[in-house]
C-alpha cells in the first residue's frame, strides 16, 4: 500500500471531520495503528482543525466549566466509601432504639386509647342502668304511696267490709267490697274474678233488697289491664248488697242475672 498516496487522497481530513462511513472509519483506524505516519498525519489535521474551530468561539466561557461540573455527579470513590463507613455505626443503635421507642410509645398510646374507649362505654352502660333504677325507685315510691293510701283506707274504722261470694256456675269466684259510707266511696277488690272475655265487661251493682232494686255503679273497663285489681268506685246509695255481673261492653240498664258472678249482702251495722 502506498501510504503517501493514501494520505494525499484527503481521506484523513474527512476522517477528522466525521464525514466518512462507519466502514471507512474502521479502515482508517486500522491503518493508523499499523502506520505511525498516518496516525501523525491525523493528529496534525486534528490539531489544526481544533485551533481553527476554537478561533470561532467567543472565548468567554471561563465560568462554563464549573457550571457544567455542578450539574454532573463525579465518581469521587474514596470520599464516598468513607462517608458510608462513618455513617453506618451511627445508624445502628441510635436508629434502632429510636424506632423501638417509637413503637413502644405507639403501642402504649393505642392501649391507653382502647382502655379509655372501654371505660367510656362502661360509664355509658352504668348511666343507662342508673336512669333505669331511678325510674324503678320512682315507680316503687308511687306504688308504695298507693298502697299506703289503700291501707289507710282499709284501716279506717268506718269501713264496712262486704265479701261477695261466687254464684251458681261461678261459685269459685269471689270479690270484696270495702265501703266507706262517710265519703260515699267503695274499694272493690276483684282479684277473685277471671279476666273478662273480649267484648264483655264487669258491671258493679248496688242492690236494695226489698224490693230488689239494682242500681249500676258503673262498668270496670280496665279490669284486664289493672295490676292489683282494686278499683275505687263512688257510691252514694244506701246499699244493702253488692253484685257483679258480666255485661256486653258499655254496660246494661239492668243486670243480666245469668251472668251474675258474685253477690254479697251488707251486714247490719253493729249497734
Amino acid at each position: 500500500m502506498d501510504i503517501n498516496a493514501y494520505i494525499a487522497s484527503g481521506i484523513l481530513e474527512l476522517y477528522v471531520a466525521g464525514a466518512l462511513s462507519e466502514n471507512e472509519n474502521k479502515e482508517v483506524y486500522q491503518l493508523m495503528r499499523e502506520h505511525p505516519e498516518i496516525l501523525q498525519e491525523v493528529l496534525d489535521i486534528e490539531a489544526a482543525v481544533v485551533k481553527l474551530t476554537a478561533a470561532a468561539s467567543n472565548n468567554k466561557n471561563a465560568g462554563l466549566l464549573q457550571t457544567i461540573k455542578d450539574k454532573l455527579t463525579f465518581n469521587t470513590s474514596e470520599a464516598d466509601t468513607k462517608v458510608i463507613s462513618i455513617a453506618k455505626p451511627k445508624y445502628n443503635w441510635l436508629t434502632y432504639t429510636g424506632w423501638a421507642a417509637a413503637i413502644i410509645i405507639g403501642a402504649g398510646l393505642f392501649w391507653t386509647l382502647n382502655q379509655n374507649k372501654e371505660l367510656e362505654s362502661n360509664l355509658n352502660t352504668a348511666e343507662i342502668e342508673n336512669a333505669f333504677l331511678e325510674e324503678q325507685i320512682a315507680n316503687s315510691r308511687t306504688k308504695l304511696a298507693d298502697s299506703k293510701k289503700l291501707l289507710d283506707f282499709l284501716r279506717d274504722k268506718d269501713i264496712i267490709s262486704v265479701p261477695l261470694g261466687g254464684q251458681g256456675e261461678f261459685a269459685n269466684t269471689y270479690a270484696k267490697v270495702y265501703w266507706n259510707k262517710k265519703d260515699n266511696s267503695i274499694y272493690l277488690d276483684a282479684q277473685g274474678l277471671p279476666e273478662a272475655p273480649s267484648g264483655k265487661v264487669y258491671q258493679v251493682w248496688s242492690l236494695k233488697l226489698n224490693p230488689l232494686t239494682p242500681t249500676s255503679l258503673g262498668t270496670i273497663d280496665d279490669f284486664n289491664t289493672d295490676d292489683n285489681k282494686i278499683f275505687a268506685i263512688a257510691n252514694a246509695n244506701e246499699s244493702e248488697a253488692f253484685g257483679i255481673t258480666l255485661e256486653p261492653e258499655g254496660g246494661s240498664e239492668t243486670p243480666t242475672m245469668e251472668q251474675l258472678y258474685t253477690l254479697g249482702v251488707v251486714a247490719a251495722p253493729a249497734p
Partner: protein
Amino acid sequence: MQLEVLISKFQQKDEKAFTELYRMYGDSMQGVIYNIVRDHAIAEEVMQDVFIKAWNNANSYSAEKGRFFTWILNIARNAAIDKTRSKAFKNSRKNLDAEYFVDILQHSDSLDDQTDAIGIKKFVSQLAKKCIEVIELLYFQGFTQKEASETLDMPIGTIKTRNRNCIKELRTIVLK
C-alpha cells in the same frame, strides 16, 4: 497524559480527565456551536448540553469508530442544529443569515488575545472562497462528503483534494 488513557479515565467518570478534555476541546466546540446558533447565551446553553451528554454517554465512544474529537464534534454539531430547529429559536432569530465561520473570525475582538489569532485571521482573509465553503460544510456543519459534493456541485474526489489542500494551508499557519 496519553489521550487514550485520558479518555479511558473519562469513561470511568474521572473528574480530572473531564476537566482536561474540556480544556482541550471546549473552545473548539464553543466555536462550532456559536457558528451555528450565532447567540452567546444559546451557545452556552448548548455547550452545557453537549458536555453533559458526552459525560453521560461516555461509554458509547470507542476509538474504532473515530477520533474522540470527532465524536464530541458530532454531538456539538447535532445539538446546535437541533437548537436552531426548535420553535423558540426560530421565533427569536427568524432572519439568520447564511454566514460562514469566517465572519466570526473577521469581526472577533477576543481573537487578538490568542497566539494563533493573527495567523488565523490572515489565513481566513487570504482563504479562497472555495476553502471557506468546504471547511464550513465539512467541519462546522458536519456534512458527509456526499452531502458536501451535492451542495457544492462537485465530485467527491474534488471535494477531498480541495479540502486536503485547504487544511494543508491551515496547518502551515497554525502548527509551526
